[in-house]
Structure formats: structure tokens, C-alpha cells
């Protein structure tokens, strides 16, 4: 019995040892796993832990400003007041909105959207109730904040255009990046971030945008931010300011001057090529686009027959009409097909085969030389000149003066904005028909297939005024421009110049009576009117009593064109104006053109225009070489 007991005890002790050994093994296994995790794999898990703990919140960069040539602000950022609601603190969201509606209007549609957004957002994340709230509402809500649990006012930056109408087309506007552009870029996907969508805003987006920063934050398992770690964050790098060559003051003046007409104006510094005015009317408010334009307002703009969204100054194409006559004259002098004094007798029309080509003056101008022909804009004279030159020689000169050429000034332009200068090859390709003398006649007076934008007309004017291959730009040049001389003799340039001065300053000039000069004491100007035909009044209509442009509906009336430059003695600024369906250029375009030119002369930085010095000095273009 006792031996049994001792044997049993011994067996128990053996087996206890075995169990104990098993326990030791198990604990060793745990210790080994602990060692593996905490010592061998520490780095790996440390990274995973940091990934859990920290998160980077994007910091939006401040967008660079857009400035005019004198540093006046065209586009900037202002504080935007937003009102958010945080469900976690608000209790019942419907009640919270009811409380808030005592201090700010909340439409049913907005209310619905907010409630929908709240339902699919984590409880602690703010949902936007309103953005771009006015200061009065914002401060009222702030004042009553203690009564509004869960309501969170916030200030962020939003793009603003202080001169909306004047710069809508040039500066363009910013908007949220559409998904196809945003892709996976967290900056572009940020709801408060905007990218350039037109004008300078898109053309110089990379510089204006800056680069995003990141704020390191500690988050918990639910994504709530516990604290911010600014010392481990990278601040956003603000975008650079972009300066334009535009003179905001004159730009605004031009926009106002053109008013509600469907028109455009381009002003160029003829020595630098800097575009100082680039106006298109009617305009629109780019600020509407920044926070998302309501579709109704957008379709109103988009369907407006005056095409406010369209930049007519760069993309509008018109027959240059009589404004081309200086170009034809230069070509004629270059090739010696017409001596300056040589006269052509105008009888109001010429017969070519079975077609009759009319001069705008039905009763004719009588015998006119080149100076007079430009001054009175005699069509008959230019039919003759064109027929002597032939299309090829006309085209050669026209291309040198800027026709058919797309001038990249630094904002997006339509690819066809380079206009058109027809050639026999072009006509054959287009219509399958051969070139006729009639076509040459039409090109000679800037009609037919010839198309140019107001920007091109301004460049053409600058080139005629200086005899140099002026290139326009919207951004100040880093080095002074050195434009190559065009292959025209100075005497020829001067002859055409004098004729253009005569248009305004000599009796009988098409703009003599309507303008009576620049309106600046002692400063003369040069100009040329044009009337771009939109619709020709048929014999039947004439019989019905439709005699005049004013009898036609607006959309069928002629476009009025005017090109000009000043001071006549030492050209500095060239301006081109096109008033769509404004009737004759002398009537609709000349006065706005002259007024814009005068503003430019008056506002020209002191000592640069040479207005004062040039007043007494004789013009001396011949000296240039």
C-alpha cells in the first residue's frame, strides 16, 4: 500500500515535470514570438504604426495674382466665408438647420443636399452648408454661435476678379478641376482647390498654382484628427504672380466704351509689341465660374447671340475690308505697279466681264491718286491696283504684314484664329474652281475670303506704322524687342502713313468729319475705316424699300472696322476695333477706336511715348535705314 502510494507520487512528479516542461516550451514559444515581433521586425511594424498614427493633410497653395503692367490687380484671392455643420456636435441635423435658418437663408434644395451629404459623411467631419457667404451673414452666424451647436464658420481663400467684365477673356477664370483632369492628384481633387480653365489662368497655371504643402496630423482609428504637427509639415509654396502688358485702366475704359455692343478692341505698343488693350464685349463675370455657375446662368451666357463667352479680340474673324488698303498700297509701291502720283478715275463702278464691281461711293470719286484713294477709301482705285498686282504679290505683302498668321500672345486661342488669306491653290482645294480676276478685285478691297482677327488687324497696323515685323505679346519681355525690318522702302511706308493721317486730318478723309482728330492738343493720329459686308441687299429688297443698313435686322448689318495709331509723328500705339453689325466703320468703330487710342496716349508713362518731344519734331521715319 505504501509502495503503491510512493509509486503513484513518483509518477505524479514525473508527469508534473512533463507538464511543466510543456509549459516552459509554450512560454519559450511566446517569448520567441515576442522577440520576433518586437526586436526582429520592429522597423517593419514601426512603419505600419506610423502609417496608422499619422496622416498627411494637403495644404492648399495660395494662387499667384495676375497684375496689369503697372501692378494693378486683375486676379487675386480673397477670404471666402464658409459655414459648415458637424453632425456629431449638432444633434439632429434637421433641427440644427432650422436653428441656423434664423440667421441665414437656407433653401429647400440646399437643405436637402446638406442632409444628404451629412448622411454619408463620418459624424465628426464637417459638411459645407454654404460657401462664399457674405460678411454680414457670416458675422451674424458667428455672433450667435453659442446657440448653434455643430455649426462651424471657416475662412478659406477664393479667387476673385476685381474688374470682372474688363478681364473676363484675358485673365480667364478658375474652376474645380474636372475629374478627367484631376485624376488621382490629391491637390486637384481637393474640393477647395481651383485650376485655371481659360485665359491667363490656364495659360500660366503652372506658375500661378504654386505647389501644395502637407500638414502632418495624428489621426485615430476613425480618421479623426487628434493633433497637428506643424514642425514636421511642409508648408505650401504659393504661386508666382503673373504680370501682363495690359493697362487695366485703358482696358476698363475700352470695355466701357464698347459697352453693350458685340465688339472688340486691341491696342498694341508698336515698339515692343506689348498688347496693352485686349477687350471683347459684351463680357461676363468670371467670378460666377469660381464657385460653380448655376446651369441656367451658364446657358444664358452660352446662348446669348452677342456671344459674351467668346473672345472676339483674338478669335473673332472678319473681312478686313478697307483697312487692308494700306497693305495693297505698300505691295503696289514695292512692285512699282503704281506710282504714288498716278491717278485712276473712279466712276462708281467697273465692269469685269459680265460682273460689275462697285465703289462704295455710287457716284464715283473721279480721278484719285494713292493718297486720295486711301483717304477717301476709293474701291475703284484698288480694283485697278489689285488687278495690276495679281493675287500672289498681294498675298506676299499681306502675309508679311501679319495676315494668315496665328499670333501666340500667351492665352489659349482657337487654332483658326490665324484667319485666312486666300490663294489660287486654296480656292481650288476649297471649291474646285480656278482663281478669277473678280477674286483679286475682292481681295483688293479686303473682302471675299479674306479673314483676320482684331488682334491681327492691330499687328498689321503696328507693322505698317513702323515697317517692322512687330510680334504681339501679353507678357512683358525680358529683353527689349528687336523686330526685323520689313522689306518696304521708307518712302513707301511714309507715303502710306501720310495717307492714313489724311484719313483723319484732311478734309474729305473718311474720318475727318466724324473724328476731327485725336483730341489731344498737338498730337495727330493716323487711321483707316472699314466696312465688312455681312449681307448684300438684293434688288428685290431694294425694290421693297430696304435701302439702308438700318433697315436690315441686326444680325445682317455690316461690321464696322477701324484701325489707327498715334502719335502720327512718332507712332507708339496702334489700335484696332471691330464692332459687329455696327454698320460702317466710320460710323460705329472709329470713335471708340480713337477714344481708346487717346486714352493710351494720355496714360502713356511719362517720357516714353515721346508725345511731348515729338510734337515739335518732324516725322523722320526715313532715318531708320
Amino acid at each position, binding site marked *: 500500500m505504501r509502495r503503491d502510494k510512493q509509486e503513484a507520487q513518483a509518477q505524479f512528479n514525473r508527469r508534473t515535470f512533463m507538464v511543466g516542461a510543456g509549459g516552459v516550451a509554450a512560454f519559450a514559444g511566446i517569448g520567441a514570438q515576442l522577440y520576433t515581433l*518586437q526586436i526582429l521586425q*520592429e522597423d517593419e511594424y514601426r512603419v505600419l504604426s506610423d502609417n496608422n498614427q499619422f496622416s498627411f493633410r494637403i495644404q492648399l497653395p495660395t494662387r499667384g495674382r495676375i497684375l496689369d503692367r503697372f501692378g494693378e490687380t486683375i486676379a487675386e484671392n480673397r477670404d471666402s466665408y464658409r459655414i459648415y455643420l458637424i453632425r456629431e456636435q449638432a444633434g439632429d441635423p434637421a433641427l440644427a438647420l432650422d436653428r441656423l435658418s434664423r440667421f441665414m437663408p437656407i433653401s429647400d434644395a440646399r437643405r436637402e443636399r446638406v442632409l444628404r451629404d451629412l448622411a454619408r459623411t463620418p459624424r465628426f467631419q464637417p459638411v459645407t452648408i454654404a460657401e462664399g457667404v457674405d460678411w454680414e451673414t457670416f458675422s451674424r452666424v458667428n455672433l450667435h454661435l453659442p446657440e448653434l451647436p455643430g455649426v462651424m464658420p471657416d475662412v478659406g481663400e477664393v479667387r476673385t476678379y476685381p474688374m470682372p467684365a474688363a478681364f473676363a477673356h484675358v485673365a480667364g477664370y478658375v474652376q474645380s478641376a474636372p475629374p478627367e483632369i484631376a485624376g488621382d492628384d490629391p491637390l486637384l481633387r481637393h474640393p477647395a482647390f481651383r485650376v485655371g480653365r481659360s485665359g491667363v489662368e490656364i495659360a500660366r497655371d503652372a506658375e500661378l498654382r504654386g505647389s501644395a504643402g502637407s500638414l502632418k496630423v495624428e489621426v485615430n482609428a476613425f480618421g479623426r484628427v487628434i493633433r497637428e504637427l506643424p514642425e514636421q509639415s511642409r508648408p505650401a509654396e504659393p504661386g508666382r504672380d503673373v504680370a501682363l502688358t495690359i493697362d487695366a485702366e485703358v482696358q476698363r475704359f475700352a470695355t466701357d466704351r464698347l459697352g453693350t455692343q458685340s465688339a472688340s478692341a486691341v491696342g498694341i505698343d508698336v515698339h515692343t509689341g506689348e498688347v496693352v488693350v485686349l477687350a471683347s464685349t459684351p463680357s461676363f463675370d468670371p467670378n460666377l465660374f469660381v464657385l460653380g455657375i448655376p446651369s441656367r446662368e451658364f446657358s444664358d451666357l452660352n446662348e446669348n447671340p452677342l456671344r459674351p463667352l467668346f473672345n472676339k479680340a483674338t478669335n473673332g474673324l472678319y473681312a478686313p475690308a478697307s483697312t487692308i488698303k494700306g497693305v495693297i498700297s505698300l505691295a503696289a509701291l514695292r512692285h512699282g505697279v503704281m506710282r504714288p502720283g498716278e491717278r485712276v478715275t473712279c466712276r462708281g463702278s467697273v465692269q469685269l466681264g459680265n460682273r460689275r464691281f462697285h465703289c462704295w461711293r455710287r457716284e464715283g470719286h473721279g480721278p484719285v491718286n494713292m493718297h486720295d484713294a486711301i483717304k477717301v477709301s476709293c474701291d475703284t482705285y484698288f480694283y485697278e491696283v489689285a488687278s495690276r498686282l495679281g493675287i500672289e504679290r498681294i498675298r506676299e505683302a499681306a502675309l508679311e504684314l501679319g495676315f494668315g498668321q496665328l499670333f501666340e500672345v500667351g492665352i489659349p486661342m482657337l487654332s483658326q484664329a490665324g484667319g485666312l488669306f486666300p490663294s489660287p491653290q486654296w480656292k481650288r482645294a476649297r471649291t474646285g474652281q480656278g482663281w478669277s480676276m473678280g477674286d483679286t478685285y475682292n481681295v483688293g478691297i479686303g473682302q471675299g475670303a479674306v479673314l483676320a482677327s482684331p488682334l491681327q488687324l492691330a499687328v498689321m497696323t503696328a507693322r505698317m506704322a513702323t515697317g517692322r515685323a512687330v510680334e504681339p505679346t501679353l507678357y512683358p519681355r525680358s529683353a527689349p524687342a528687336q523686330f526685323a525690318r520689313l522689306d518696304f522702302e521708307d518712302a513707301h511706308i511714309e507715303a502710306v502713313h501720310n495717307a492714313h493721317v489724311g484719313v483723319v486730318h484732311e478734309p474729305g478723309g473718311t474720318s475727318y468729319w466724324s473724328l476731327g482728330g485725336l483730341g489731344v492738343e498737338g498730337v495727330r493720329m493716323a487711321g483707316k475705316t472699314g466696312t465688312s459686308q455681312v449681307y448684300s441687299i438684293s434688288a428685290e429688297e431694294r425694290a421693297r424699300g430696304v435701302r439702308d443698313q438700318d433697315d436690315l435686322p441686326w444680325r445682317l448689318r455690316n461690321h464696322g472696322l477701324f484701325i489707327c495709331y498715334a502719335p502720327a509723328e512718332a507712332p507708339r500705339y496702334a489700335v484696332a476695333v471691330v464692332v459687329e453689325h455696327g454698320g460702317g466703320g466710320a460710323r460705329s468703330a472709329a470713335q471708340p477706336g480713337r477714344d481708346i487710342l487717346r486714352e493710351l496716349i494720355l496714360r502713356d508713362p511719362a517720357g516714353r511715348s515721346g508725345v511731348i518731344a515729338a510734337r515739335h519734331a518732324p516725322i523722320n521715319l526715313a532715318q531708320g535705314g
Partner: protein
Amino acid sequence: MPVFTQPVPRDLRAKLFELNWAFVLLIVLTGCIGVLMLYSVAGGAWDPWAIRHATRFAAGFLVMLIVAMVPPRMWMSLAYPAYLGALFLLVMVELFGATAMGAQRWIDIGPLRMQPSEIMKIALVLALARYYHDLPPEKVSTPGGMIVPALAIALPVGLIAKQPDLGTAVLTGATGAVMVFLAGLSWKVIVPGMIAGVVGGITFLRYGLEEYQRARVMTFLNPENDPLGAGYHIMQSKIALGSGGLTGKGYMQGTQAHLNFLPEKQTDFIFTMLGEEFGFIGGIAVLALYALILGHCLMTAMACRSVFLRLVTMGVTTTFALYVFINAAMVMGLVPVVGVPLPMISYGGSVMFTVLIGLGLILGAHIHRAAEPPKGAGIFG
């Protein structure tokens, strides 16, 4: 007779003198670590866990000392009634129990809310110990001597597994099995039994698990497969431990724990938090503390003269060791998440009382190690 026999202490003074004070100190130390960690879980506040844990531990500690003073004969006489009572309560839970987190574990008796499976852990140990105490060693491996323990283990384990509480079922079953082994079951029975057990276990895993239990087993096998689903807890626990490194992130500085990436950190995953805040050094220190406690338990078991006290001690020791092992292995991703707390450190009253009563029995066994209770004795016999 042995060369010398110690006298069995009879009065309270003598018993207190014989109390294993080193053992008691280790237990108090463990409880204090629990309070410390729960203070950190609450982000540096006594409320809601640390203060209650401390109170419960103090109460449980007193109960432990009282249990240690009670003569073993009394436990022997209570063994069968306690077992039958616990079994009855398990059936009651099955029929009327409250459901918490998808499992029926609790039963309300008046104001008391209790977990019968916790009572069963102690009751089974006592009942098996008593059974083998009364059974002649040569009968342990006979069919008659095997059928009773087999049923005594299988019934409660089955009922607990059905609640379903897989962790406790495994714990209870394994404790019973170790006791049978220590009672002297012949290897001729053990080896075929183990083979049958492995086959049966595989069959059970395949067909006998609830859907969520199967999911736990599957995610345990490959936690990275499903990082935001069921494997999320294991993954986050491993990240917390691993990122703790050698020395840890510092007390109350555990980012995984305090930023809520860690689940149930006040209960099942408290070891993870400890490992995150105190690193490998802290984790190993706590494991060493448990190892010392278990060492004392083993010494006590081998010092006891009676089969009853030996088996009671080893039964409680096994349960305790399994608690620590399963919990630690679970948070390290070595075994599936089965919901087993870390004794005396995890927050939770029921388990702490069970553990402290069990440790009280071991302390009592140490005091009464020289006693040889009569076989087949009735109540107070």
C-alpha cells in the same frame, strides 16, 4: 512513512505563518500591473477601469486568503455538489441565459449576474481531484475508471462550447485532460486517445464551428488577407507589439492603443498595450512574473501529500497557465482570437474572481500540504 512529516497547521496564526508570502507578493504585483495598464487605457484616468479593477482585486484578494485558510476536507466535501450545481447552471444558461455579443454566457440570479462557466472551471478541478483521490491508482486506466472523468469533462465542455465560448471550452477541456494525465492514465490509453483527439478535432474544426468561429480560425491562418475585416484585430495587435520595440513607446504613449487602432485593449488585448508601451522588456517581465507564479504552483503540487491537493493544485495551475498562454499567443497572432483574458491584468470581474479563488486553493494546498484527507469521506468526513 516519510522520513519526516510536517504538522498540519490548525489555527489561523499557524496557517498565516505557513502562507507562501512570496507567492502572495507575486500575485499582488500582477494585480498592480493590471491597475497600472488600465489607468493608461483610460488615457491617464482612474475611471472607468483602473479604480474598479483595484477594488475588485482587493476584494478577490481577501477571498483568496479566506479560501487558503479553509481545510482541504471542506473543499473535498464541496467538490461534487459544486460540480453538479455548476452543471445545472450551465444548463440553465443554455435555456434562459442572457445573450451578450452573440453568446449566451450570463445568468441573472436576483441582482447577481454570473457566468456559470467560470464556476465550472473551479468545480471541475475539485470534482476530478476528489474522484481520483478516492480512486485506487490501479483503477485509473480501467474502463470504469475512465468513463466518469470523461463524462465529467465532456458535459461542461460541450455546454460551454455551445454557448458558444470556444476559449473557455478549450481551457476547461485542456485542464481536465491534464488532470487525467497527471492522475496516472496509462500511456496505452493516452496515445490512441490523442490520435482519436486529433482526428476528432479536425472534424470539429471542419463541421462543428459557428460561422464566426470558422472565420476567426481562417483569418488567424492568414490575417493579412483581410486587413479591414476579421483579421484587422490581429494585424493591429501585431503592429502595436512590433512597433513597441525593445523599450516601448513609453507609459501612456502607445499610439496604437490610444488612437483606438487596438480593439478591446482593456480586456483581451491588454498585453498588446503593455508590449507597445513597455516594449520587449516589459512584455518579457510580465511573462517572467507569470512564470514565477507558475513555478511556485508546480513546487506546491509536488510538495503535497494527498492526491486531492496535488490534483487541485495542478488543475488550477493548468487553467492559469492556459489563460496566460492562450491570451499572449492570441495577441501575437499565434492562435486565433478566442476571447481569453490575461489573468489579473485584464479588466473583468468574473475571471479575476475565478483566478483568485483558484490561487487561494493553491495557497491552501501549500499550507495543508502535509495533510492526508481520508478517502471516500462525506461532508466534513
